[in-house]
């Protein structure tokens, strides 16, 4: 295969996995509340800032001892996920739960308001400038140094790291929703909250747990963002959130596998557009895809759950 093509696929895949993590948050919440959680991208943004702060607090710097680095990254990952989970569930408690019986417009507007609030929290906390963080994980090309291939294609250690963090999380989530009792409660609530409530499921608790999971995934994505893309800024969440939401829609909103697939497809679209067209058109193409999917196949690539919606 063409080197350039292979390279584009690798870049698309690693970005797509991050989109997938955030897209799962959108799809989980949409599946259970039919709410586009506009604030979710900003939770991801705050997650990246929290991760950055923790990494700096713990003194993680490039060139540290490998085991220490890994241990500290795991600690930061867990703490960030815990904080963003707490943040997300608080948002649900403050901004969405009181509006359960309101018309659909109300929680959506509330979510937009929440998004503005979170962006400004980021702005006040870290200032308007873009924040950078050094390469804690080296950019070594795994293909040449470890596997000894003679190739110009680059699969960096950072990209491997993205896969190592995201793929297990995705699998754990699938297992949780598909196999556990709590997961069954989530699916039941998504299908019919009234009946689920009658069957003894604590609907409020189930929704709260959904937000906890979504927030934790956004936090993990935030850490990956800092370590992989090395940058964050207060308005990162808007663009990234829209991309992730597009992924969720692309795969079929409400459908977990769909969100992952959509994230990866969107990563590819981004990478191919950047490489073969022009980066300045990428956003227009992403939104064009979003509109086309919604118009021609509103259920997405995999989704059937919301067929009555379009």
């Amino acid at each position, binding site marked *: 295969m063409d080197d350039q093509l292979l390279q584009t696929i690798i870049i698309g895949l690693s970005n797509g996995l991050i989109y997938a993590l955030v897209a799962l948050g959108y799809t989980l919440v949409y599946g259970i509340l039919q709410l586009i959680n506009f604030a979710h991208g900003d939770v991801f943004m705050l997650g990246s800032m929290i991760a950055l702060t923790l990494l700096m607090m713990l003194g993680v710097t490039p060139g540290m001892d490998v085991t220490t680095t890994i241990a500290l990254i795991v600690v930061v990952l867990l703490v960030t996920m815990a904080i963003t989970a707490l943040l997300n569930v608080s948002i649900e408690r403050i901004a969405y739960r009181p509006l359960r019986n*309101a018309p659909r417009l109300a929680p959506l507007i509330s979510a937009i*308001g929440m998004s503005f609030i979170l*962006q400004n929290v980021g702005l006040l906390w870290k200032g308007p400038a873009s924040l950078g963080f050094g390469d804690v994980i080296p950019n070594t090309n795994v293909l040449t140094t470890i596997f000894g291939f003679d190739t110009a294609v680059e699969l960096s250690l950072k990209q491997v790291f993205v896969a190592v963090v995201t793929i297990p999380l995705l699998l754990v989530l699938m297992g949780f929703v598909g196999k556990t009792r709590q997961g069954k409660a989530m699916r039941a609530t998504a299908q019919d909250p009234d009946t689920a*409530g009658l069957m003894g499921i604590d609907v409020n608790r189930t929704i709260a747990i959904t937000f906890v999971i979504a927030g934790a995934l956004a936090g993990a994505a935030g850490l990956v963002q800092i370590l992989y893309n090395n940058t964050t800024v207060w308005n990162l969440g808007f663009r990234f959130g829209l991309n992730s939401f597009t992924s969720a829609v692309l795969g079929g909103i409400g459908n977990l596998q769909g969100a992952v697939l959509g994230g990866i497809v969107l990563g590819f679209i981004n990478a191919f557009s950047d490489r073969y067209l022009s980066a300045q058109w990428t956003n227009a193409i992403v*939104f064009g895809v979003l509109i086309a999917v*919604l118009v021609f196949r509103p259920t997405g690539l995999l989704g059937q759950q919301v067929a009555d919606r379009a």
Partner: protein
Amino acid sequence: MSSSLINPVHVESTGGLSVWVRGIGATITGWPAAYRAALAKNRRRTILLTVLVATVLLYPLIYTAIPSGLTRILPLPSSPVIVFMLIFAIMAIGLNVVIGFAGLLDLGYVAFYALGAYTAAFLASPHWGGVSVVLFSNVPAGFPGIHLPFMFIILVAAAVAALFGALLGAPTLRLRGDYLAIVTLGFGEIVPIFFKNLVNVNFSFGPIQLVNANLTGGPLGINPIDAPGLFGIKFGVINGFAPVYLGMGLVLIAIVIARNLERSRMGRAWMAIREDEIAAEMMGVNTVRTKLLAFALGAAFAGVAGALQASYQGATTSDFFMFSTSILVVIMIILGGIGNIWGVIVGAVFVQYVDKTLLSWAGQRMADIGNATGLEQFGDINPSSFSFLLLGIALVVMMRFRPEGFIPSRQRAAEMHVAPPGQAIGSIGLIEEEGLVPELDPTEPGGDEDPEIAEVPGEEPVGETIAESRGEVTDEEQPR
């Protein structure tokens, strides 16, 4: 403001466009009689409103008359702030047609604003340097570029925006609720990207050959754009308070049009769709056509606002048209009172005032305190940078405690407090409401409908509230 002031003659809903136009005519000619009637009916309120209107009209004189020292104490809006209040008032009136009347959530409204602004830029600037078309314009003949009169540009801008509204709406309006919101949001993002990127276009299709063509001015945008001119008077940003009156005139026209739309057959069809699309369709409302018209007409208002903004400022760039502008207009509608024209105007004026005058004034006073007390940290606080934080908090708090806004329409207030019929009432509103008539199971005690009423003790059912507030529409005939 009393409705009889603005729309004294109830427009009969039996005809089409001609009646609509006659309705506007009747509104204008019937004004003196309506005023006398209003004076007789409620003297105090009418006089109060007259004083208010007079104050607004004479505000420029008041503003220039007061000593400048007084603005340190009183945060009075300056001319550009007022013009932007009026521009956003036009946008709010237009978006209210889409969201408030027809219930379609449009989060990409800025796209039509941008289209209007660029229409003005294309038709009244030296941008097309290769040609020279000067018609009834305030630039000398033979000047390079196209220069058309402002009145004409406004009409074109409205038409262009409406056309794009229809183009976007045609395939997407069958989507529901928040899917439509997302599609419009995407459109709102795409349009400015096009305006930003179409700068070195190489394109060849049949006879059309473009080599490095600068279509939109790229990131720099287009300037200078001719100032609006009417009857030999210029209304540019350098012309003091003159543009304020131009803006007021346009807002007035927008109000008259929107009022008449609301009370037309189409307006009632919008309301029917907003409240229950399936029921409306059953009753013979052509939902697609009706929604398309709401979308296109709403977009036309933004086109006018964009043309006014570009002509007034004499420049336009794509960076001016961001998602936050779309949301700003939504916020104005929500805060002011969704569905109510007066409410959304108040919302637009209020948000612009807080954003552009009050917060910067507060910042200056902070600096004063800092200088007076020697505490530098006071001067470092810049309240203007908190405007979106405040707006965000306002949205969340409003949705929680007063979702219908400060000056709501009574119907919308009722709707915002009770989930509309057809929407699930249980612990979360979802799934079964969209597209499906809830099935009643006769064997099930209580049935589906009871919880809906039980949910809101002390409140009247929606239907009655509407009937009360609008006696004239309950016996509404069915639009074709």
